[in-house]
């Protein structure tokens, strides 16, 4: 099964960490990284991803706007969107769910927790529970 995961975050370090975490969860291919809302929408115009991991606070077009665009698009309406953000604001949580986010995940500060959060996302939306043997290789390439 070919998965396609779209990572949207303005911070390249966060993109790198998320990608690593996904590799730990066995997702070593089909991961697309973009650094902003506009770029995300651009990427979405191509192939439809299996899941979008979306940062909220970004310069220019923010995550909420991206979410709204996805939900307004007939083709993308059904794509699972997981909001992955540093914000813990009730307002943000409410807004995201109100606009059709599938999950709201606060980025943990500790990396081990970050890993397990990403693993949970992978299991739920991508059906992967175990890292394949190649995972380590993927890891070491980073």
């Amino acid at each position, binding site marked *: 099964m070919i998965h396609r995961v779209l990572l949207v975050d303005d911070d390249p*370090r*966060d993109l790198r960490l998320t990608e690593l975490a996904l590799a730990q969860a066995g997702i070593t291919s089909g991961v697309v990284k973009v650094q902003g809302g506009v770029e995300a929408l651009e990427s979405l115009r191509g192939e439809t991803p299996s899941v979008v991991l979306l940062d909220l606070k970004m310069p*220019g077009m923010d995550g909420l706007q991206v979410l709204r665009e996805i939900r307004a698009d007939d083709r993308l309406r059904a794509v699972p969107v997981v909001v992955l953000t*540093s914000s813990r604001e009730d307002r943000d949580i409410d807004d995201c769910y109100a606009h059709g986010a599938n999950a709201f995940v606060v980025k943990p500060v500790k990396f081990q927790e*970050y890993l397990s959060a990403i693993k949970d996302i992978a299991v739920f939306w991508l059906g992967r529970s175990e890292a394949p043997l190649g995972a380590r290789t993927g890891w*070491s390439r980073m």
Partner: protein
Amino acid sequence: MAVNSRAPVGTYEYDPVSGYVSPSFALCEILGTGTDAHLQIDAFLGFVHAADRDRVHQAIRSTDRVDNTAFVCRIVRPDGSLRHLVHRTEPIRNLNGDVILMLGLMFDVTPSVREWEDVRSVMGDPARFRAAIDGASVPLVVTRDTVVLDANQAFLDVTGRTREELIGQRTGALGLAEPVREQRLLRRFQEVGRLEHEPVRFALKSDRVGLAMVSSERIAFEGEPAAVSVFVDATARLESLARLVESEERFRRLSDASMEGLVISQDGVIVDCNQRMADMVGYTVDELRGRSGLSLIDPSSLGDVKDSLDAEQPAPYVVRLRHRRGGSVTLEANARYVLSDGQRVRLTSLRDLSERARAVEATRARDESDRMFRQLAETYGDGVVLIEGGRIVYASARFAEMLGREVVDVVGSPVGTFTTPESADVVRYMHRERLEDPYLAEFRRADGTTFSAEITARNIEADDRYLRIANIRDVTPRRRAEERRRALVAGTAGVSGVPFFRSLVKHLAAALQVKYAWVAEYLGDPPDRIRALSFWQRDDYGDSFDCALAGTPCERVLLVGNFCAPAGVVEMFPSDEFLRDINAVSYYGMPLIGINGERVGLLAVVDDRVMERDAERESILSVFAARASVELQRIRAEEEIRRLNAGLEERVALRTAELEAANKELEAFSYSVSHDLRAPLRHISGFVELLDSAVQEGRGGEARELLLEIGEASSRMATLIDSLLNLSRLARVELRNTEVDLRALADDVIAELASESDSRRVRWTVGEFPPVKGDRGLLRQVLANLLGNAVKYSRTREVAEISIAAVPGAAHEVVCCVSDNGVGFDMKYAGKLFGVFQRLHASSEFEGTGIGLANVHRIVTKHGGRVWAESSRGAGARFYFALPAANQLASREGGDLQGVEVRR
């Protein structure tokens, strides 16, 4: 007197004042004495058995009805025979409740007592006792512990009951004795073994109450102890006393030739009345008898009458009765109840109050009007006299004062006494029938000086006297001035503020007979101008003026205080054009004094005639200068309060806005901090993990790269924290406002930036700036931020073009613009630009904490200015900030450009 008795009833009257007793014929017969009526009380008591004398004496002297119960006493007749008599007294009282007469009643019960003694004598023999009971004509009853065992026919006759109704019943239940009284008697009986002539009320069959004298003895009845009692019925005979009392009272009162009306009524129906009563309501005595008393009572006094009917103690009350011919009469009434044939009747005495009341009222009204007249006359500014028969019968104190004399010296003198011989005609004037026209007369004071007065007289008729009342008005100038002062006081009373000053100048001009008057306040510190608060010229209010103080008499007042130029004021103050314009001759001014004693204004009058500085003017001016000073102080205090209040409101509004802004900022701040401070920590944590595996796997190059990342994350964190500290410091810092030259400041900042970025080419353009008010240090931060951003976001350009200049804006502010040819931003996100941690570019693209523009915003806002920006992506950016101009008046010409739209 219809007394139904078997034994004769004797009565007597005792007069407590004289101490004489007057027995009736019947009593004389009982006593067995002659009929020479009057006996001293001691002589009367001489008939009484020594053992009973005290009790009789006490009963006669008793004034309290409660105590005068009936009792049996013995008398010894001159022939030596002993008689048993029931004795009872009844006091007769007048309206005040005083006993004026004691009525005594005595009747012979000797046969009953004898019979009782006969019965007692055979008590030991049951057969004879039985026969004695049955044969006795006195009522006898046998009881045991108050239960009736037997009774004779006489007892049945008296009580009106059958034997069956009585036997086996308790005496209390039968109403044969009042329960309390019965218990007391029973105890006495048990203690002493007998009772003797104890008065007992008992219920007669007809629901009436009877009274009997009861005596009891112990007997053995059918082998058991019992009591036999005799009831000597005194009901009828004692009732005769009540009737006697009533008739006696009636007689006394009705025959009284007093002015009182008397009415006897029963159940509201008039039984009898006297002639006086009939006269008071316009009826005859016969017409009133049998009439309802209520029909005579005016509805307005029904309440009082009812209260009196319910009252325990008789008390006088006022009642209004309807007169047969209409109207009503007011009467003072007093009523009490008396017993008549065992029934209560109401005895009312009435005194005509209306006649006396009318007289009193008339006197009071006369006194009142007299008092009012005097009061009026005494407070009146003119003299007032009353003349009767050519002589002064009343003179007001004011008139005496005008003459320099005492009132007592004036009253009683002929009218002409106080005029000069030339004015002797006044007498004739006073005697004229028609007195419409005022008469001018010359009066002579006690000290020989004279004064002119205007006399106005009228004839008046009062209390059948023919009087002349004359008003004497002093018309000398002094008097006129006084009047004017009074008018001035009246004119300015009850007003305050500007109306007060207006009223003041108008009345002041009239009082001092001058053409101009004004109240003005000094302006400036030290004062160099005056402004009129109100100004009176000739016949009307003039326009308020505001003029320089130098070279005016008003300046002199400011410097020296009271100042008067009786003449030639224009020559004294040649530079005062105003005085010249109005042809002023004289000037008089007085300063108004402020709360700290300083001269805050003045009261001035100007005339085109000579004006002497006399006591009259001075006193009027000084009184009103004082009054005006207080008023001005009050107005200024009010203004100060208003100003403070307004300032307070403004400050509160400002502070509220500040707090709201601070709150909003704090909210945005904490939101951003939670995001931005967490990110570097997360990165450090993540890269440390990666570093660990890189080291384990011997990938030295990668480990080195990760270490750099970690170091960078921690320094980014430190920068963030520093920026936050800076921002929070800024929130607390006080502005040190000075005039700031923005050009010099810009040059300074540019020099610093150029040294930091010397490798790049930047073309700087710096324009001219009007001076602004602000904190130099903070404004430098603003310029450093904006210019720094311009450098940063234009670094992708071959040659950065950055300019800073003032642009046209509103009159009160200076608008500055910093423009560059850099990457610019999307106007969609312009709203986010000045928030904390808000970035429109990825931090990877352009470094920065996202706090700089928040700082700019904060500083400019703190200066009372505003900040905004415009751009389009890739087309450079223009940041504007507006600050309050240092000299707002100086930049007035900028107002023409106010409409120019500087924003896109």
